[in-house]
């Protein structure tokens, strides 16, 4: 399975994402500079976490305008799987690849801790190897993870089974609508989530629940 990780100015989980991909898929992902206009020929694109453009103005706003995002959109429209983690999720909403917006955490504080998630949907290339309703633990690390969308959009997301991850045990670290932690695009090929699966791939760190997400991709895409 060939993958690419986009590097924006002040992305800072690009290396972590690449490490996880390499360990699990056995192939080094291509690191793609935000200024490039074309993605290499890959099966998966990852928009990593971090503080692209310092999160200035709005998280992800400036990154969403970078040259590479035009091609990311085009390929996503043609069905290429795109995974946006944390800041990557924010970029995806700002770029219009996912609905809604990520607002400042309800308590206005950055929060970094492991959180319990519930896997709501297994009908996706990203989650097929999880069990429906499975409890997993990923760390979160963000100041703007408070997912917002209007009621109709939220109902639609839920109706169409596009809410993939929810904060479990009502342990919601940011006040997001309906405890949403991660959502799919209409075509189900774009996933954005605030928690960090790539930081949950090592028994020495925050457990290995995140591996399954990458293993699902490996199974679906190769």
């Amino acid at each position, binding site marked *: 399975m060939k993958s690419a990780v986009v590097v924006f*100015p*002040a992305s*800072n*989980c690009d*290396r*972590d994402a690449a*490490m*996880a991909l390499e360990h699990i898929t056995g192939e080094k992902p291509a690191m793609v500079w935000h200024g490039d206009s074309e993605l290499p020929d890959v099966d998966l694109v990852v928009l990593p*976490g*971090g*503080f692209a*453009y*310092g*999160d*200035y103005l709005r998280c992800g706003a400036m990154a969403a305008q970078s040259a590479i995002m035009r091609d990311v959109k085009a390929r996503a429209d043609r069905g290429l799987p795109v995974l946006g983690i944390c800041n990557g999720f924010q970029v995806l909403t700002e770029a219009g690849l996912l609905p809604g917006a990520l607002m400042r955490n309800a*308590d*206005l*504080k*950055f*929060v*970094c*801790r492991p959180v319990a998630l519930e896997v709501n949907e297994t009908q996706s290339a990203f989650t097929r190897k999880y069990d429906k309703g499975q409890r997993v633990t990923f*760390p979160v*690390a963000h*100041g703007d993870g408070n997912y917002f969308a209007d009621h109709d959009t939220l109902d639609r997301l839920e109706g169409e089974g596009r809410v993939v991850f929810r904060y479990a045990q009502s342990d919601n670290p940011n006040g997001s609508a309906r405890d949403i932690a991660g959502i799919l695009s209409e075509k189900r090929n774009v996933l954005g989530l605030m928690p*960090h699966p*790539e*930081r949950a*791939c*090592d028994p*020495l*760190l*925050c457990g290995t629940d995140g591996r399954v997400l990458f293993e699902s991709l490996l199974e679906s895409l190769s």
Partner: protein
Amino acid sequence: MSAITPQLVREHGLSDEEYARIEALLGRAPNFVELGIFSVMWSEHCSYKSTRAHLRRLPTKAPWVLQGPGENAGVIDIGGGDAAVFKMESHNHPSFIEPYQGAATGVGGIMRDVFTMGARPIAMMNALRFGAPGHEKTRHLVAGVVAGIGGYGNCMGVPTVGGEVNFHSSYNGNILVNAMCVGIARADRIFKSAAKGAGNPVVYIGSKTGRDGIHGATMASAEFREDSQEKRPTVQVGDPFTEKLLLEACLELMATDAIVAIQDMGAAGLTSSSAEMASKGGSGIELDLDCVPQRETGMTAYEMLLSESQERMLAVLKPGREPEAERIFRKWELDFAVIGETTDTSHFVVRHKGKIVADIPVHALAEEAPVYQRPLASRKPLVDEPPFVRSKPVIDSLLKLIGSPDLCSRRWVWEQYDWSVMADTVQSPGGDAAVVRVHESNKALAITTDVTPRYCRADPCLGGKQAVAEAWRNLTAVGAKPLAITDNLNFGNPEKPEIMGEIAASIDGIAEACRALDFPVVSGNCSLYNETNGEGILPTPAIGGVGLIEDVHRVATIAFKREGDAILLIGETEGHLGRSLYLREIEGREEGAAPPVDLVAERRNGDFVRWLIESGSVDTVHDISDGGLLVTLAEMAMAGGMGAWVALGGHTPIPFAFGEDQGRYLVCVPRQEADRILAQAETAHVPAALLGQTGGDSIAAAGQGEITVADLKRAHESWFPAFMGAGELPPTN
């Protein structure tokens, strides 16, 4: 240009003697620009004029030390061709004036000190001291400092893995914000600041220069008066986004061989970086200020030379390598400009608008800076009049202590720091020392910061010793071999003999402990004049320790892991209550002598505990420090979500439970192993005793009653959020 009046000289923080010396060195009166240059270069902050003579007493050598004090950061060999690069630095005064930006720029500054040496920062720590919780400013300062550290460090993508937070009224008007950065480099790819050779281009990289923080260095070298609030316009604003680009761009440039020397622009910005580089390289340097990237219009030479705009670096390149360097910095959308060259005149020469505005022999700024042997008055150490202790119920006191400001959980703080980015944080905040894996290797670094100011007040020398010993102990407790320290000496006004006495004595104590523990000093920083209206802070020589873990799978944590484990107490317990938190929190008294530090026992006990961890027979260890034995036990129980039963047998309960005797650890071992390990301790002449065993959901002390771990946890976790809860608006950039 304004004429040089005695008034103007004083405003520049220079004494009459110092001014006379400047005239002698120049053989003429300085002009206004030159006066400004001398004022920052000769400031306490840059010249260390009060402490330099004493710092020489610190041991700085060991086979594994690759770079001791004198560069931007210290460097030690951690095997496999890797080096650890680290330093701690204060941003106390700016953080008091503007907590968010003061702390943020402090973090940015210390990171530059580390990556300017060619290292990628892999961990941040911070040692914070605030005023009494009840003081009107404290909550606002805590909120701002914590948000500022997170705001900068999180954006940089460097995990903030630990530190210290203390409260004491002596910091009401002078909080302490000490930030430590640890980086990793290849041992043969360390970059230094000596601008050797003539005719090499001097290049400016990073952000543009504005009128930020002019005279920050002199501000950090003057005692606070209430009206210092008026120095406010000097506060710099941090730009972590630009710093992140600067980090990546510098590491990219360092992968080439274009660099002769490189140095961050810290205190006194362009002036000190260029003068220090020339001085260390034994060369001269010429700058043309018209080439300096400027953010504001109409900046004078004086302003540009003294500006402390952040996120800037100065590099000396090999001739002809400019285009290659420029390409890298343009790619990262950073400013890049050739602003001068090195010369063989050994003069520091500055041009502006075609005119020479400063011409000073380099040695006059650096080596010739005054060094003072200030008068010392040694406060005689308080001797122990064993403090009378009314007998109070042990368990009630435990509950009260565990929920007190200095012992309660710091979760509220560290959850605002990204401690897990870079996917190498093996031991997150809350343990004895943070453990960060060296990327893609099987080894790890252990990192800690420690000092117990209330001990230092009682006896500065012993306090210095204790701070080093506790750092060494914390590294040992996770299974690391302690290698070296950085220190941040925070004190009051050195012109007061009793304060200077505290400084000198602390350094002696630090030096003695470093020698006894093979734990040399490789970098550090001094922050003096921490006084408001003549009120000095508690002497606070913060120690940042770094140790090596050869096998990242052989680390110990504080959490109880198995029911029925035997709990062993390592080390001698006299029940020393002088200066203890028990005395302060329960009896409301800050009295008595600090606990004695026996460096021989410290080393012997620690080496034994480390051996137990390395040999795989122990995975649960916690050193006994603030609050004493029972508090330590409670912390292990809360971390493991499991209770314990212990016998205080044969001892007077309160001193045994809450005394702060040094050199002690609690370790857990499977019950059937206990006798073997006790025997091993005996052969190693290490005092060790069976204290009790893990299990159940309560902490039970024989004959003293019990309390559930849940109740302890509630008290432990609730103080900080409750304190910060009301009235504060979380600051944002």
